[in-house]
């Protein structure tokens, strides 16, 4: 079944008025609940068959054809083909049918092959055995026969066959470890929990006795969200209800690790699993080049239609004289005569359309696709972008956007993990203003300004000591770090005892690992979580045990997390850590001022700061908290909202303990990359969730802001003093004054010396700016516009305190601004996905925060620095290549078809084609296809090294400069000029002279006449040579492949023509080309005119190029010229080396 139709079905049911479809009820082991509780409604669920294939054997042909003809170009050619079949047209249906057939077949074979592979993979998955518990016994079943409600047993290292709710595990505490590497790329082990009340059902027999139902939401694609409830019917009538969350849900595709076996119940099967729902194809992004291409296509379509119209009208005007319409030597058939004049006119119009249809080349789409597909391999193959550490190179998820990489104007980058390494280390912690530095961190580096700091030995008094230890304990307890146990079988925690703890803490947040590791260095070691007890080793190597009662997980809105623990002495503590902005307002006591000062100091240094606070709870308070939390957790609807409300109530009235500072080092060459991007004319925006000071420090370090950059602040702090309105106007005035005086500089694109502006804005202000103004537009327009105006004049913008969605909002805002700039978003974490999807080009970094960003991106790289080569070299090349490809394709088809158009004026508008069918068919397929394809793969107008060294070259191609209308018109007129030269050159040879052959070829010395096919062949020969040589003139990078293809295709044309005219082809019903080509070549004037006309056609382009280069050179051309001057002396050596290396190739 089709995936999309399922989704439609689901959404239809989900949005339906009936409430029961909002959630589903699963009967574990298919046992009915005790009577009376609820009516037993057997719901129907799909089986566990995974269908990722698109086609089946019998629907492949119709469905594939349908899919292919949905593409507008294919449909156009199909229409042309059908017209050719139906009416009497000048060219045989094969001329358009053959290329179309070729394209369709190749695509169908490719898709069919891919689908066959998918079928095979599906079958392998669907038929792999799973263990199901039936009547207390373990039964083997094929995976596809699994049904919702089945109890499944999964063993270690097996993959879950569907989405399961964990009931019990082999481990006593009801946990199991899972790696979701194949789902989101995170290879770390995550802990999942069995429902407390079922974890005792450990064996197959026991599980079979379990009587429970699960209510959960209908399947939805979010991997990290799940809401459900389990009702367990024990002996009593009253069922026990327990909440189910994503920590209970084992996803299909994940693998069980470090756990012997588990029992779980299937709740989502087959195409309803979250993995299957995530197979959705991302929305198609289209590149600017593609848009220009489509615009050109429309122009050409108009040209085509007007050509056909003109010819039709002229035909009937010309035919008004019956002796012209039907001279005695050329009578119509009876049926033709009887046809109504309108029908005749319409068929004539269609016939002209068919005659000129080649102006929109079918092969262009194929060539563009091939160019993109093959071209993307150069990114994959790039040695410079290969990361030795990860052992991985870049990924290309779509090749549609290759050329867009050369068009980027705005770069939106995440900070953590993108600009920085996301390799956190605890630099210091500050307890009540006293600073502690873990020794190991320093590793030889001297912290600037560290000399004057309080060190650990100058520790405060007894009271302080207590606070200090509480602080350390808080950090040891308040986290979700898991300890990776090396050898559970032996029960030896070797790693921790040897102090090699670094490799064993696992967490989704690297900050937490850094904190726990830092604590380890400061003397407090977190050992593990065992039986809901967190064990820590204090300075005196004593084991302390805290019972973990509740975890209030981190989320990016609250920006904090909390744990509630009970110490061995029975005291309840709530520890909370989080961003300063979210902690300080909730603090009631503690040395806030000192801590705040330190936090700010650290933030300026570029460190990530977290504040730690606690409060003691009484038993009653704890009970109240539990109640709050449980009611929120049990809610099926809007659970998130209710939880957030509960958290808000619980997390307040803190006592501030201190703050931590974690350093996140800048990535290798991040600053260099940012500088290059700036020079290349791109505006770099940093979007981060971090606090302003930290982010600003990183920006300075990464040279996003320079010393002389004037920073404009648009933050809550400022908007508190002044109204947003005034601030915005102030800023825009500052910026615009400068802009006005520097207009010329900025236009020339060399505004290096003028005053730089950098803008800092925070999330809260941004949302205020983006909010539609209530007062209407009376006060000088929308804030949005003013804001955009300011941004436009700032070379760098830093947005801090951003929520993930806000990142996407910013990207959208810029995208929609009136210049419609091309945006690129780069990030590494799940919080960047929205902006990666939103931007024109999304780039993911395969970093520490999993693969989600990389999965959703268009391209994925391993390090931020690779962006430089990706954009400046690959993007630049792709762009110039495809720009030439598109322009050239239109050019060569104008050259091809325009003579046919002119010929109509001399053949009584009778749709007589100028060229033979074979030439019409093969022109785009074989005579002129390969040179441009290879050009578009190999061309390098400037060397890679120069492109990397001189980023300003990127400005030369900015704003789609090679595909603007003037360029397009130039190419079109060049094509028309060439066509006129071909046609009238040949025309004058034929018209007023006896254009003849002296017939030496066949040893008869006669004067033989040439007919219309010779005329066409002459034009065609000149045409093929001219367009190929035109490409040769444009080629700047002649490898042996280019030589081979360009000269090879010319040679192929000659050989083909000789062959085509050399034989009486028995399967053809006409022999019009017989010996035409040879006879033509045996004539001296033909040779002379071919040479002459080729030179005349190429002349204007050469002159234009040379003049432009001499008078108005672009940067690119200057560098080319300079390089040539430089290499002139070394050319002999270079030539020698070239020949030697080409021989070795």
């Amino acid at each position, binding site marked *: 079944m089709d995936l999309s139709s399922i989704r439609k079905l689901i959404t239809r049911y989900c949005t339906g008025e009936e409430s029961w479809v909002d959630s589903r009820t699963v009967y574990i082991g298919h046992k009915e609940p005790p009577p009376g509780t609820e009516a037993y409604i057997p719901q129907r669920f799909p089986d566990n068959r995974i269908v990722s294939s698109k086609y089946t054997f019998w629907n492949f042909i119709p469905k594939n054809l349908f899919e292919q003809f949905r593409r507008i170009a294919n449909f156009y050619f199909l229409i042309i083909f059908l017209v050719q079949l139906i009416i009497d047209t000048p060219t045989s249906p094969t001329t358009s049918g053959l290329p179309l057939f070729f394209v369709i077949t190749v695509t169908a074979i490719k898709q069919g092959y891919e689908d066959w592979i998918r079928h095979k993979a599906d079958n392998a998955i669907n038929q792999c055995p799973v263990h199901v518990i039936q009547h207390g016994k373990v039964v083997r079943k094929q995976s596809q026969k699994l049904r919702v409600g089945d109890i499944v047993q999964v063993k270690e290292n097996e993959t879950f066959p569907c989405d399961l709710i964990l009931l019990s595990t082999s481990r006593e505490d009801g946990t199991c470890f899972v790696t979701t590497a194949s789902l989101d790329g995170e290879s770390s082990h995550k802990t999942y929990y069995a429902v407390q009340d079922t974890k005792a059902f450990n064996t197959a027999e026991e599980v079979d006795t379990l009587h429970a139902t699960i209510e959960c939401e209908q399947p939805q694609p979010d991997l990290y969200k799940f809401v459900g409830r389990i009702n367990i019917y024990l002996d009593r009538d009253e069922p026990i209800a327990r909440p189910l969350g994503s920590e209970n849900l084992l996803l299909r595709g994940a693998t069980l690790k470090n756990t012997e076996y588990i029992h779980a119940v299937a709740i989502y099967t087959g195409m309803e699993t979250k993995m299957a729902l995530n197979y959705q194809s991302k929305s198609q992004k289209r590149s600017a080049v593609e848009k220009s291409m489509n615009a050109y296509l429309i122009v050409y379509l108009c040209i085509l239609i007007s050509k056909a119209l003109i010819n039709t009208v002229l035909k009937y005007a010309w035919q008004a004289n019956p002796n012209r319409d039907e001279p005695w030597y050329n009578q119509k058939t009876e049926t033709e005569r009887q046809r109504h004049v309108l029908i005749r006119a319409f068929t004539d119009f269609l016939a002209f359309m068919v005659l000129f249809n080649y102006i929109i080349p079918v092969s262009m789409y194929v060539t563009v696709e091939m160019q993109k597909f093959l071209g993307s391999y150069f990114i994959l193959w*790039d040695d410079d972008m290969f990361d030795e550490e990860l052992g991985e190179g870049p990924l290309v998820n779509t090749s549609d956007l290759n050329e867009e990489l050369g068009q980027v104007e705005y770069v939106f980058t995440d900070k953590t993990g993108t600009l920085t390494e996301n390799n956190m280390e605890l630099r210091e912690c500050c307890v009540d203003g006293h600073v502690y530095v873990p020794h190991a961190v320093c590793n030889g580096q001297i912290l600037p300004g560290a000399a004057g700091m309080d060190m650990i030995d100058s520790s405060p008094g007894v009271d302080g000591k207590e606070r200090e230890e509480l602080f350390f304990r808080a950090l040891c307890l308040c986290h979700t770090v898991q300890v990776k146990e090396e050898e559970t079988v032996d029960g030896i925690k070797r790693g921790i005892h040897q102090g090699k703890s670094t490799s064993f803490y696992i967490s989704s947040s690297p900050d937490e690992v850094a904190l726990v590791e830092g604590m380890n260095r400061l003397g407090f070691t977190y050992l593990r979580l065992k039986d809901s007890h967190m064990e820590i080793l204090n300075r005196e190597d004593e084991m302390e045990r805290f019972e973990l009662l509740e975890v209030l997980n981190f989320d990016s809105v609250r920006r904090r997390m909390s744990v509630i623990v009970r110490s061995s002495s029975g005291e309840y503590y709530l520890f909370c850590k989080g961003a300063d902005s979210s902690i300080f307002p909730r603090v009631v006591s503690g040395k806030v001022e000192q801590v705040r000062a330190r936090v700010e100091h650290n933030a300026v240094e570029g460190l990530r700061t977290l504040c730690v606070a606690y409060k003691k709870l009484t038993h009653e308070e704890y009970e109240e908290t539990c109640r709050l939390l449980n009611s929120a957790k049990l809610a099926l609807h809007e659970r998130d909202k209710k939880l957030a409300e509960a958290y808000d109530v619980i997390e307040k009235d803190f006592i501030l303990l201190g703050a931590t500072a974690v350093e996140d080092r800048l990535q290798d060459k991040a600053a260099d990359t940012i500088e290059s991007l700036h020079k290349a004319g791109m505006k770099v925006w940093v979007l981060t969730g971090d606090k302003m000071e930290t982010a600003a420090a990183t920006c300075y370090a990464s040279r996003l802001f320079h010393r002389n950059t004037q920073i404009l602040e648009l933050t809550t702090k400022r908007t508190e003093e002044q109204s947003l309105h005034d601030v915005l106007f102030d800023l825009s005035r500052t910026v615009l004054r400068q802009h006005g005086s520097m207009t010329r500089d900025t236009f020339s694109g060399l505004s290096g010396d003028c005053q730089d502006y950098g803008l800092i804005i925070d999330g809260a202000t941004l949302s205020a700016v983006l909010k539609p103004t209530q007062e209407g537009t009376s006060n000088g327009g929308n804030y949005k516009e003013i804001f955009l105006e300011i941004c436009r004049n700032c070379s760098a913008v830093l947005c801090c305190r951003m929520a993930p969605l806000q990142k996407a909002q910013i990207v959208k805002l810029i995208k929609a601004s009136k210049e419609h700039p091309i945006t690129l978003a780069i990030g590494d974490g799940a919080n960047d996905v929205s902006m990666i999807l939103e931007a024109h080009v999304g780039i993911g970094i395969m970093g520490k925060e999993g693969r989600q960003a990389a999965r959703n991106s268009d391209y994925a790289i391993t390090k931020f620095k690779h962006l430089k080569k990706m954009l400046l070299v690959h993007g630049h090349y792709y762009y110039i290549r495809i720009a030439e490809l598109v322009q050239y394709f239109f050019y060569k088809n104008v050259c091809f078809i325009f003579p046919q158009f002119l010929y109509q004026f001399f053949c009584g508008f009778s749709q007589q084609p100028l060229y033979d069918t074979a030439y019409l068919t093969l022109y785009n397929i074989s005579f002129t296809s390969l040179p441009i394809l290879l050009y578009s793969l190999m061309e390098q107008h400037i060397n890679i090294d120069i492109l990397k060294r001189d980023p300003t070259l990127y400005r030369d191609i900015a704003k789609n400069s090679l595909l603007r209308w003037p360029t397009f018109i130039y190419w079109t007129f060049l094509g028309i000029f060439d066509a006129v030269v071909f046609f009238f050159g040949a025309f004058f040879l034929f018209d007023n002279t*006896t254009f003849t052959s002296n017939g030496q070829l066949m040893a008869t010395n006669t004067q033989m006449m040439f007919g219309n096919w010779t005329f066409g062949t002459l034009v065609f020969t000149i045409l093929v040579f001219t367009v190929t040589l035109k490409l040769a003139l444009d080629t700047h990078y002649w490898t042996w492949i280019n030589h081979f293809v360009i000269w090879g295709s010319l040679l192929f044309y000659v050989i083909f023509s000789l062959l085509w005219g050399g034989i009486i082809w028995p399967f053809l019903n006409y022999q019009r080309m017989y010996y035409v080509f040879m006879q033509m070549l045996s004539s001296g004037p033909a040779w002379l005119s071919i040479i002459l006309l080729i030179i005349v056609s190429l002349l204007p382009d050469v002159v234009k190029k040379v003049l432009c280069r001499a008078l108005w050179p672009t940067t690119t051309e200057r560098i080319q010229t300079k390089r040539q001057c430089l290499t002139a002396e070394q050319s002999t050596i270079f030539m020698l080396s070239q020949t030697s290396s080409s021989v070795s190739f």
Partner: protein
Amino acid sequence: MMASSYNAKDEDAVGSGGPGAVKSKKPDNTAFKQQRLPAWQPILTAGTVLPAFFMIGLIFIPIGIGLLVTSNNIKEFEIDYTGVDMFSPCFNCSQNYSWNSTSACTCSVPFTLDQPFESNVFMYYGLSNFYQNHRRYVKSRDDSQLNGDKSSLLNPSKECEPYRTSDKKSIAPCGAIANSLFNDTLELFYIHPNGSRITIHLVKTGIAWWTDKHVKFRNPGGNNNLSIVFQETSKPVNWHKAVYELDPSDPENNGFINEDFIVWMRTAALPTFRKLYRIIQKKKDNMTPTLPPGNYSLEVTYNYPVRSFDGRKRMILSTISWMGGKNPFLGIAYITVGSVCFFLGVVLLIIHHKYGNRNNNADIPN
């Protein structure tokens, strides 16, 4: 134990990345994949293009002069014998036209050659406003019938409509092209100063492409007994005689392989065209010109109607050179292009001197 050992291996691969994994994913470092193939990188600058322009100029101008001179040396004489004008000799014939008339209308057109025509002289007929390149016309033929295919002879291609059958018999050769075969007969007489008319011998073979005559066009069943072969067919409606009567005197020039017919069947590219009609071979002695200057008379058997479509009929006499017939266009074009190139070369030279240095200078501070 099994599980733990497996686990350890797994960790290896996931962790820092085993050497094996790195090798398999690392791209090959070949010149092609790294886009560093050795390459020749030419750039079109004024400096590089200049010599080419001068070269083209220097080569093209002499060629053009040579072509022009050759073309001018070719002698060509053209006479319109349509008979539109009241006083032209063929006026009567052109008026009295009807396809059915059995008696041929003849007229004689006198003309004078001022210059002698040396070597072989080629005689053409020319038609104007005759759309031989009309699509309906061009395709109205059956190449397999003309190639001697027996089944096509009796069942010609649909493309021949409406000239496919007549009187329920298939037409051979079918189609509009064959049907409208040019059927004027042109004869040439030299009026000796003493008043006697000397017939000039016109050779009617060797005027078609060798390959057409010997390969593409073939009589069905060989060249003998053509009347029997064509028994089941009927002649094209506009023809006065059947295809096997085109040249009864010469079996090698009869039927489909009649050269006048073959020449006609090669459809002209443009509505004004000329076709080779006869060859006047040079005298054996080589001393007297083939056509000495003097008075001539062109005797026309006027069969071919062109007035209905405002056509014109001409007779052309021409000598040839190594480059074919009279052809001033090519020579002029060569001279023009050569001069333009030369001129552009000069312009570029100036520009190169003026701006070339400036660019390089401007580049240095960058």
